[in-house]
């Protein structure tokens, strides 16, 4: 049959490949950073401070993207920063997804008192300003990678819970659920076998979006100096430092910012692409 599906598929594929490619590259760099990075990300050299990137006059060989005000290599710091960014993205994204989706699924499908408790909890949660909440949490938990991850999970599970609940509610009204009930399935098995597969694409899109958000949150917390030690190479920390010397050395700010931007964009595009890819109606 002649229709627009081929064109839609091509667009989905291009999106998947581009965003997936960037994320894969980032993952490889993160894994192999100690071997790939040209310099030690922590090594300071005040004589080589604020060196420009390689194509500009005054660049030194080896410092491809220049150095910051303490003479640390920007490229190496971005590569090592990818380790932290991706670790936070993966762990926080998946943990948030598991907790939020499970609660959302139960609330949306089981309804009744479970739904009432979970929904009220979400309402209360959403009434807290998230950034303040995060800062409070970090203050209690102390700084460090694990605190950032816990903060993201504690704050953001509501995002999954709301969306998955709404979707599960929608799907529960479908006759295929009634039909599974007529067939004699238990409620638990209807939830897992019938509803979950239909909610899964939404969850997949959300989880990648959440990974992007985790990267941003980590950057924000680093920016306000609440992440791990100030020395450690985080993108947010680099942006914060670069902001101070923006007029003398724009590259310290711009390169981590571009990396951050591309990464967050890729996460969301990858998720949308995956969602459409797994949609049997579009496939």
């Amino acid at each position, binding site marked *: 049959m*002649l*229709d*627009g599906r081929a*064109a839609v598929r091509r667009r989905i594929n291009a999106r998947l490949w581009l965003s997936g490619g960037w994320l894969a590259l980032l993952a490889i760099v993160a894994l192999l950073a100690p071997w790939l990075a040209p310099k030690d990300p922590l090594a300071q050299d005040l004589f080589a401070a604020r060196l420009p990137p390689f194509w500009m006059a005054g660049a030194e060989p080896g410092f491809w993207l220049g150095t910051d005000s303490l003479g640390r290599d920007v490229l190496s710091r971005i590569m090592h920063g990818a380790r932290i960014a991706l670790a936070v993205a993966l762990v926080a994204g998946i943990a948030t997804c598991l907790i939020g989706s499970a609660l959302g699924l139960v609330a949306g499908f089981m309804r009744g008192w479970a739904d009432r408790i979970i929904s009220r909890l979400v309402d209360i949660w959403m009434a807290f300003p998230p950034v303040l909440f995060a800062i409070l949490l970090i203050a209690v938990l102390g700084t460090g990678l694990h605190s950032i991850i816990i903060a993201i999970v504690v704050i953001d599970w509501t995002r999954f819970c709301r969306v998955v609940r709404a979707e599960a509610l929608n799907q529960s009204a479908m006759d295929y659920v009634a039909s599974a009930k007529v067939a004699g399935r238990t409620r638990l098995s209807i939830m897992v076998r019938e509803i979950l597969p239909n909610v899964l694409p939404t969850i997949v899109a959300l989880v990648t979006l959440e990974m992007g958000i985790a990267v941003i949150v980590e950057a924000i917390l680093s920016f306000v100096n609440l992440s791990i030690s100030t020395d450690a190479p985080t993108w947010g920390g680099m942006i914060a430092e670069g902001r101070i010397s923006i007029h003398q050395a724009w590259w310290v700010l711009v390169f981590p910012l571009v990396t951050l931007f591309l990464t967050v964009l890729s996460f969301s595009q990858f998720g949308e692409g995956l969602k459409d890819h797994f949609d049997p109606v579009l496939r």
Partner: protein
Amino acid sequence: MSAFLEIEGLSAVLAGTGARLLRSVSLAVDTGEVRGLVGESGAGKSMIGKAVLGILPKAVRVAEGAIRLDGHDLLAMRPADRRRLIGSVAALIPQDPLTALNPSKRIGPQITDRLVDILGWGKADAQARALELLGEVHIEDPERVIGRYPHELSGGMRQRILIASAFAAEPRLIIADEPTTALDVTVQKQILKLIGEMQAHHGTALVFVTHDLGVVSKVCQSLSVLYAGKVVEDARVADFFAAPRHAYSRALLAATPKYTDPAASLQPVDPSVIEAVTAEVAVADREWIHGR
């Protein structure tokens, strides 16, 4: 003397793929005439109404042909002029009374807004007209209904209001797109009678899109049977039900259950009929492509 609405050789294609949705459709509806457009889902019957009203989906493009409304060639007009002409002489009775009314607006303004904002009526005139129309569509106590919200009214009431609203600006052409499909049979009968009554009273040309041959036999004087976007039969209603000419029309009629005649076993549409009519469409397609 030409008819009020004339469609000539209208073809529409799905943008991007070039798949044809309407295949050289020609038909005419005169002032005071009710013409049924009948076909199964996907036959393109709603598409014709949408093309006339200029509300085709973005992905659908008119490839050739002409739509003449009151002598003006719609497709040759500037979009702004076209909108103005359609707005002043044509109106739509939509399919689903539940979604066709704005849930957050009271009934009164939903009828009068168009008169006031677009046609420049005075507020008081528009209000009086709305009350008069609600009376015409047999709504008791119009003063009370005018202040109600849609969700406070039954499906049949809402469809009456949509009919009143369609006739508000004295249009000369009304397109009714499956206006009773969402209603119960008893309500359907009332609504069909009402549409017939209003049409006769106002002398409007009416295009009635439906999948139900029973409904056609009650409200229309002429009909066009569509298959795959092609008009396979164009007839007067009396002639059609006495002796349908096209094999597909006959098959369609035989597949419609009739409680008065249970002995006549239902004839599912014979695959050979579908093959024949599909072949006919393919021949027309080939001629169309060669002609370009």
